[in-house]
């Protein structure tokens, strides 16, 4: 069957290669000092999408991302690997969003795209590490969700068969379309960029990314695929009060620098008494419970 697939992708600071200046004096991420990259788990999701496209000729893969104009780079990165198109949600009203406002924005965009069979996203982003956006998008759209996917084994007759990673093993589940799937970072790595696609799309940009004296302006008229879709809150019929900072109930009270270090250690035996004592201690310290 032909599938209409949307991959949720986020541009994130590369927190895997953190240098001295990665944090500001206020304890927030110094985005200027870290290179902006395609969120790693989202690349795993893209690979699953591209495999489905290969197995189901006629299917399409679109990248959906929210961010400032420079996040257009994420769409290009997707196109270089085989995505067909992309949508950038960019608007001052989207800025400052927490996971709730982000999933609201993404869900309205998916509704606007229309007729989507599968929404794939990485399990979580390496900047926030919440793993909330995928499931919230599913809730808002009233779609079934499968999290922690390791591999989408097959899609047919309106159902997807998915291998999930669970504690201590894997399980295979079946879910009806339309469906939201979040993919683990341990799933198959994304294929490399294809040089032919890199050459084709290298000047593809969102209108807001373009300088006034863009040297490639003449090409845009001839080659419509070089203009990427860019949407504002109004374009996706969004409610401004649910977007961005206005739609985000999360407030950052303070940020602390935590350095993990073992101060003291305790040796326990396997006796019931020792285990019981440890559990009580962990509950009273509010580590579990």
């Amino acid at each position, binding site marked *: 069957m032909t599938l209409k697939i949307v991959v949720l992708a986020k541009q994130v600071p590369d927190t895997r*290669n953190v240098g001295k200046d990665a944090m500001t004096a206020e304890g927030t991420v110094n985005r200027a000092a870290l290179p902006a990259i395609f969120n790693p788990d989202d690349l795993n999701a893209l690979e699953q999408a591209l495999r489905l496209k290969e197995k189901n000729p006629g299917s399409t893969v679109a990248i959906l991302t929210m961010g400032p104009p420079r996040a257009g780079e994420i769409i290009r990165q997707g196109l270089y690997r085989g995505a067909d198109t992309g949508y950038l949600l960019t608007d001052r009203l989207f800025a400052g969003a927490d996971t709730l406002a982000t999933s609201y924005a993404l869900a309205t965009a998916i509704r606007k795209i229309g007729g989507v069979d599968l929404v794939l996203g990485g399990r979580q982003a390496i900047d926030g590490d919440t793993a909330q956006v995928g499931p919230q998008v599913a809730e808002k759209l009233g779609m079934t969700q499968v999290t922690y996917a390791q591999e989408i084994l097959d899609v047919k007759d309106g159902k997807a068969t998915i291998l999930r990673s669970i504690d201590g093993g894997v399980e295979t589940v079946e879910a009806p379309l339309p469906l939201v799937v979040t993919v683990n970072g341990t799933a198959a790595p994304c*294929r*490399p*960029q*294809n*040089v*032919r*696609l*890199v*050459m*084709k799309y*290298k000047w593809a940009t969102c209108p807001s990314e373009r300088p006034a004296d863009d040297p490639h302006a003449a*090409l845009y008229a001839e*080659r419509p*695929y070089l203009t990427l879709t860019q949407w504002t809150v109004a374009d996706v019929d969004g409610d401004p009060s649910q977007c961005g900072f206005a739609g985000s109930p999360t407030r950052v009270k303070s940020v602390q620098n935590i350095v993990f270090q073992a101060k003291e250690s305790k040796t326990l035996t396997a006796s019931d008494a020792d285990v019981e004592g440890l559990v009580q201690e962990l509950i009273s310290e509010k580590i579990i419970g």
Partner: protein
Amino acid sequence: MANYYTDHPEIAFYLQHPLMRRIVELREKGFADKDLYPEAPVDYEDCIENYRRILEVVGDITANIIAPNSESVDLEGPHLENGRMIYASKTVENMEAMRKAGLTGVAQPRRYGGLNLPNVIFSMCSELVSAADASFQNIWSLQSCADTLYEFGSEEQRQKFLPRICAGETMSMDLTEPDAGSDLQRVMLKATWSEEQGCWLLNGVKRFITNGDSDIHLVLARSEEGTRDGRGLSMFIYDKRQGGVDVRHIEHKLGIHGSPTCELTYKNARAELCGSTRLGLIKYVMALMNGARLGIGAQSTGLSQEAYNEAARYASERAQFGQTIEHFPGVYDMLSRMKAKLDASRTLLYHTAAHVDVYKCLEDIQRDRALTPEERAEMKKYSRLADAFTPLCKGMSSEYANQNAFDCVSVHGGSGFIMEYKCQRLMRDARIFNIYEGTTQLQVVAAVRYITNGTYSEIIRGLLAEPVSAGMEPLRARVATLADIYDASIAAVKAFENQEVQDFLARRLYDMTGEIVMALLLQRDATAAPELFAKSARVMTQMAEETVSGKSAYIRAFKAEDLDAFRVAEA
């Protein structure tokens, strides 16, 4: 994230080679493809941008997929199963990555599914692949056999095979036999025309065939019964889908373990003739070998880079006597020479490749229309220069790669002798570079006529006449002195009027040629980009002085009767 291309800005420098604009103009034929293929460039700047983008992708794949796989490939290697060669598992992963990235058949015209890359860019890709895993470079760069198929095959054969190569099918050139190594005139594999089957049938054995179980083979075989020399040999295309060729044995080698070296048996293997009969060795294989030699130049340069990187990193981390060892003269002597040899190999490689590109592009244009008298003169000029530079490039860079790998082990001290370190693999891998595709001794034979007929002297005089920066002037003056000593040495060798003495001393002249030319090229590069090349230009100039004074002294003191001390005693 590591990237073998962007991490080494010296490579990108050669995108500005003085011949680049001409190459793009000829290769892209007025940018006619731009309306047919969305990836085709619209003008010169766009084309260079495309090359840069392609190299970035190759730099990414080589650093993040191929290099991390290289140790496993070296340990596992290919194996034989029922007459078929099975690659090391990580080699398959590498191939898949290159295929998905669209990096197969890259030099072929777009109408057959290629990227229309000139030799300069193909060589850059090849260098990057080799730095990550020299054994994978063997397999990957054999796609350049398609150039020969394109040049000499019929349009029907092009349409049949080139799209398959561009889609990722592999190639091999089946030349060597047990009794025909350096001396290919002795090839015995038999080709007979079968009226019944309407095709040629191949029977016999080939040995030492790199990637010998490939999808599409170019085979040198004897089509003219009763002949014994090169004029009885023709070139054939064998398609694995036809069947009839089995792998009998895979060699256990000192290095390049990932590259399968096969012994093949042909039993009535159906094949098609490529080009005309009798031209197999004298024309087609010569073209094939020239391409392959340039490929070894790229392989050598890539490995030299990796050896230098490994040595420099170790020397900057390893501390003894209270400081890191890179600060000791004995160590930085090695490191700076390694870097100079690396930069020298690279400048000679891209200089050679650029010359090959100009004349090959003109040859290709000639297939569609008659060339103007100016174009014909240009083609002749660059063809001659390419023929002169190719044996210099292959021989010098492969010797340097060996020296760099050897010194890399030395810099590592005792750790270099431990199998856990990469430097031992580099040393084993490099060991074949100055042997296959024509040993260094045979490169000397190929180069000697350009020494004696003054071609290199003319090249050297031409480079000496180019303006250089004030910083390079004193170095240039020193090489001018060397050029005089060089010419005097050639005259001294010629004065013997003794072929054996000339052949015996040729290697000395060859080494002098190589280092003088490379010192001059590095001075040119350092004029444009001193931050990248000034140091190596200086070191190379001093190396050339050392070589020229030593070799010229050897020649000056030599007498014909000295040969007696070297010759093998008659039985």
